[in-house]
């Protein structure tokens, strides 16, 4: 077993809203070993992006610990955090909104280096930017181009270059491919996987696309309304999903094969309920086809049902 790079313990993030307390992330625990990828899946509003932002300390957590190589990021001072942050980087979802339209490709990629005062002279800066452009597959002739001149795939490559230029160890990818077409999506996924091998990166990959997450992850965590409902090895979770929500999620994916033609499916009824002041018990109970009285009371423990496979469901044995 390789060393844990990041360890999250009882992480909570609540937001105060006029309607009450919004439980965006509620008691989430996980760890990611060095060089591995944790996939985080869930529908919109399940708290997966908030989880990513909280890890980076872009939002301060309400409770809990985030250990990065043993240092608790929640309690370290601003100065120390400044030194750690280059090691943790983020690739954002929307390559159309996350780049400054007034900076050209070269300036965009150089910005993290300048902000962190990494390079001693201009020459070194230029070399590193050129090197990074080559790594992510941006042609040299594009260095003076502005984001609006580029397509989504190239823009996302800039986003990746910006995240990687500081040579991070841990990269949080927040839906990096969901705004892209399938053929471009495949190019970016390949790039991310190649870079992981080359630079020994550790990823947390946030997405709602289950086929993407299966492809890229070693371990998968399924979230529902701020809670982690199931966590297991990527192959295991697709083979033996245990939690009713994971099962429903897997059954809902349209599969591109002739067998799925006009197939009747078991549908999950209802919609995600509000995460504001959630009721006690299992958060999925309102939509769960198997919900019983016991599901609506008390905390549902996150139990290990087979080695490495965890699930939070009070009726595991029965279903």
């Amino acid at each position, binding site marked *: 077993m390789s060393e844990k790079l990041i360890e999250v313990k009882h992480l909570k993030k609540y937001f105060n809203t006029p309607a009450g307390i919004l439980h965006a992330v509620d008691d989430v625990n996980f760890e990611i070993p060095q060089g591995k990828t944790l996939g985080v899946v869930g529908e919109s509003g399940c708290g997966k992006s908030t989880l990513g932002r909280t890890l980076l300390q872009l939002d301060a957590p309400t409770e809990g610990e985030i250990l990065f190589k043993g240092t608790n990021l929640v309690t370290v001072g601003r100065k120390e955090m400044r030194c750690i942050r280059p090691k943790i980087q983020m690739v954002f979802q929307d390559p159309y909104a996350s780049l400054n339209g007034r900076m050209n490709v070269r300036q965009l990629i150089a910005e993290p280096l300048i902000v962190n005062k990494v390079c001693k002279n201009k020459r070194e800066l230029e070399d590193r930017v050129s090197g990074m452009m080559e790594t992510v597959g941006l042609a040299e002739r594009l260095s003076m181009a502005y984001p609006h001149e580029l397509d989504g795939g190239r823009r996302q490559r800039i986003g990746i270059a910006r995240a990687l230029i500081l040579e991070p160890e841990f990269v949080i990818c927040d839906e990096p491919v969901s705004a892209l077409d399938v053929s471009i999506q495949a190019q970016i996924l390949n790039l991310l996987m190649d870079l992981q091998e080359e630079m020994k990166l550790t990823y947390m990959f946030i997405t709602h696309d289950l086929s993407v997450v299966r492809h890229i992850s070693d371990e998968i965590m399924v979230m529902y309304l701020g809670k982690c409902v199931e966590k297991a090895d990527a192959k295991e979770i697709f083979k033996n999903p245990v939690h009713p929500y994971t099962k429903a999620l897997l059954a809902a994916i349209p599969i*591109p094969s002739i067998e799925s033609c006009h197939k009747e499916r078991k549908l999950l009824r209802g919609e995600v309920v509000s995460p504001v002041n959630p009721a006690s018990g299992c958060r999925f109970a309102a939509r769960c086809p198997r919900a019983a009285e016991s599901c609506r009371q008390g905390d549902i423990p996150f139990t290990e049902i087979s080695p490495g496979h965890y699930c939070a469901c009070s009726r595991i044995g029965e279903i």
Partner: protein
Amino acid sequence: MNKVLEVKNLSIQYKTDLETVYAVNSISFSLNAGETLGLVGETGAGKTTTALGIMGLLPERTGKVPSGEILFEEKDLLTLKEQDMMKIRGGKISMIFQDPMTALNPVLPVGKQIGEALLLHNTENLSNDEIEKKVEETLELVGIPKARKVEYPYQFSGGMRQRVVIAIALICNPNLLIADEPTTALDVTIQAQILSMICNLQRMYKTSVIMITHDLGVVAETCDKVAIMYAGEIVEYGTLGDIFTGEIHHPYTIGLFNSLPSLTKDSHRLHPIEGLMPDPTVKPEGCWFAPRCKYCTEQCKKQKPPVVEENGHQVRCHFPVHQKGVE
């Protein structure tokens, strides 16, 4: 079977003083009553432009149709006057738009918006009370309690809003429904609900549907016929079986399937199509797909490929790939 819609050699261009965008280039397809046609392609392939062309909603100044016919129930929609088109649009042909967040009027209660379609196409001279009743029925049909008709769009979630948009499209019992990426903005569990609802309603009313999507999974689940579009052309066209298990294929179709991460098979690397969609303002001499094609030859660069046909399964390529299935 009677044809509801037949599109022949339709071309659509966007013309400005600076440039001409060749958005749709001589496409042909047809649709029988009760059938679903899937229009598949990536961003910029011309799917939405085709839909807007059929609806007669192209931008007035720039959108031009230099050639082609759109026969709907044997009438050419392109020759109709705007007044006559208005009677058909929203009544016999209706459309579900991609983004339910922006397709609705935020300051009108949803019941009013649904009733508006019927009020404009009131061929049976329904009274206001009858319209009101029909609105309630339609709401229940799409799975919204009728008491919510007085609410405003902001009070609905994304999936519920899409149901309202579908109710607007269906209230006049259209013969042709164009669904432009109806589930792209929604979560998978909600997507499954909406898709099965569209299919059930279609069966109930024998409506023909054009399903515009980039998701091949959605196509497999809902469509009878499929047209794969690339750079404004239909590169492969046939029944669902032809596309998924047929003998000949366009290299682009195969590339599209290979780009998808599989849910069942393990593969370390994906095999994307290299390069990008060509600039739609330049009409190349040969095949549009040639610069990205693995099997490209000199002939492909110079000569427009013919349509190869095998029992109605059409592939626009000089050298179609012979392989069973697409994977």
